[in-house]
């Protein structure tokens, strides 16, 4: 059981994470108004979203200090998620007779 002081420290962390998330939201909206190419826009947006997502997952969902099984489960899931996204994409782009622009 966590003691009261550590909870109080956690609460400060939660507020700080909230601040960071809000600032990052503003940044990602602001960045979308920059006139950069599609690829760089995607890269910027995905990086910022990943940072925000990691903050939520590691602090709010306590993934910084979880048990081994949860890490294994999420590792496998993340791997399969990437397979689903990218192997599918590679396959569709590797079509005979179809040019993908």
């Amino acid at each position, binding site marked *: 059981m966590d003691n009261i002081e550590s909870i109080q420290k956690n609460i400060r962390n939660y507020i700080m994470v909230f601040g960071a998330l809000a600032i990052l939201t503003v940044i990602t909206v602001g960045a979308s108004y920059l006139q950069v190419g599609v690829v760089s826009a995607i890269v910027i947006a995905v990086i910022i979203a990943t940072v925000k997502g990691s903050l939520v997952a590691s602090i709010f969902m306590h993934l910084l200090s979880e048990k081994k099984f949860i890490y294994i489960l999420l590792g*496998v899931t993340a791997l*399969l998620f990437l*397979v*689903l996204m990218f192997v*599918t994409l590679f396959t*569709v782009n*590797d*079509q*005979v*007779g179809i040019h993908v622009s």
Partner: protein
Amino acid sequence: MTEISRESIWTKYIFSQDHKVIGLQYAFTALFFLLFGFALMMIMRWQLAYPGKPIPADGFIWVIALLGVVITLIGLFHSKKNLITLSGIIFLFMTWILIYLTSGEGRMPEGIMTPDFYNSLGAMHGTIMIFLGVVPLLVGGLGNYVLPLQIGAPDMAFPKINMVSYWSYFLGGITMLVSFFVPGGAANSGWTSYPPLSDLATTGQTVWLFGMVLLITSSLLGSINFITTVIQLRAKGLTWMRLPFFVWTQFVTAFLLLLAFPPLEAAGVLQLMDRLVGTSFFLPSGLYVGTGPLPVSGGGSPLLWQHLFWFLAHPEVYVLILPAMGIVAEIIANNTRKPLWGYRSMVFASIFLGIMSFIVWAHHMYLTGMGTTMTAFFQTTTMIISIPSVIILSAFFISLWGGSIRFNTPMLFALGFLPMFGIGGLTGLPLGLASSDIYLHDTYYVIGHFHYVVAPGTIFALFAGIYYWFPKVTGKMMDELLGKIHFWGSMIFINGIFLPMFIQGLAGISRRLYDGGESYLHAQDVLFWNEVMSYSAWGLGLMQIVFIINFVLSLRNGKDAGSNPWKATTLEWSAASSPPIEHGNFDKVPEVYRAAYEYSVPEASTDFIPQNQKEVK
């Protein structure tokens, strides 16, 4: 968990939260659907053998109706056997559906099957057998009943979710049955439901999608329960490497269900949007239907469906086969009276199999114009995934070596599984390689291949499991003579159905032909096999009647089994037979001291040492 005490019959038998009752609910519903899906096929086989001739369905239906009446009567006059009465009523219900299906203008005017109805039967046979029959019986039925007992748990980790899982499955099944009654009939775009065809198909397809959403929900809830149960509720001392192999296979299977089904759910949602809201997720631009272009926005991709579908459906193959291997492992160890050979390598092989099954799916799609790079990738992964299957199968064969084998009915079915699955697996190799698959794709060869894996493979293992655990569930033994008739008859007939399919497939007969190839010149030489296959199918049907009779008679007056009739080592046999409902499973909480299969230990006085026995005596 708070103390559970409920006495009403509704909560005890209908909305039960006890894993044994839920397991039986699953098993009975799934057995009904297995027989029903098989009945659909028997009707189709008439059309294939005698295209365009009116079907003499009456005789067939009379057999089922008669069975229904007899079983109901046996049940009614044997006051305590509710299960028997229930099965009788199920048969009568099935009679009614079959009478409905084999009559009517849209389906069988004057007893002659329409092409659309043939397509419906094909699509629904596949759907029902896989999603409503085999998987629910393997995982929902046997898994639910046996797994908590084998790990020494009082119940599943989440009993309420277990109940919801069954009822979601039940509703999904009802939805699928209802789809036969909507205008245009049941889904008729194949069990794979490829768009654009399925996007434009009759209402039955929408009902099919709703049914699938319910079934997917059910298996998600079930798999969460199975995984949590195995991790959390193992008895004291039951370490991972002491788990019975059946538990391991169920554990890996649950992960496959958990992670592979959601993409199909996503695809199902997209197809529902296409059908109900008019989106074009799977409809490409410039699609012509009938006389003009289809009035949709276009821009969709039919291949997207295939990817999402096979992302599920390939792991689904291992959902069908892994628990079957688990059952066979239990029975082989028990009846050779030897520890399994290579238990650890089997465990690691099944984990590896589970992971690999997620990266082979596009070998179902070589004909979609895939380029050479990705084709090479999927060919390679497909060849790699055969290795763990071969490891497990080899371990089984080596386990037999030098054993003093008891040839009882469960063992016969388990032994039958080995060569049958072997044929299924080996005939899959040419399908995993693009150059040969291009020739064989969508022919009867494919049908032969996967039926060898699932029908004489998995379903034989299922029968083995039913004969093996029947004494635990009911406290009675099943009849050996009827069991052996059932086995040998099924073995002969099932090969009569599926072996000729390879011949027809190699001759180039397509898999979804309404007339069985009669109108094709290249098919003429192999057409006579259609009749052979059809008679075998009906023969196989007769053999299952032997099983049903055995089942009912053994329930009524089988020999008393005691708690451990097979002299087995795993924990379920240390519980009383027909373990009490809702009072935990064991008289005292078991503690485990040894590995799962300690048979014929030299210094022991008996030839088996149960897992919960501390000293070698």
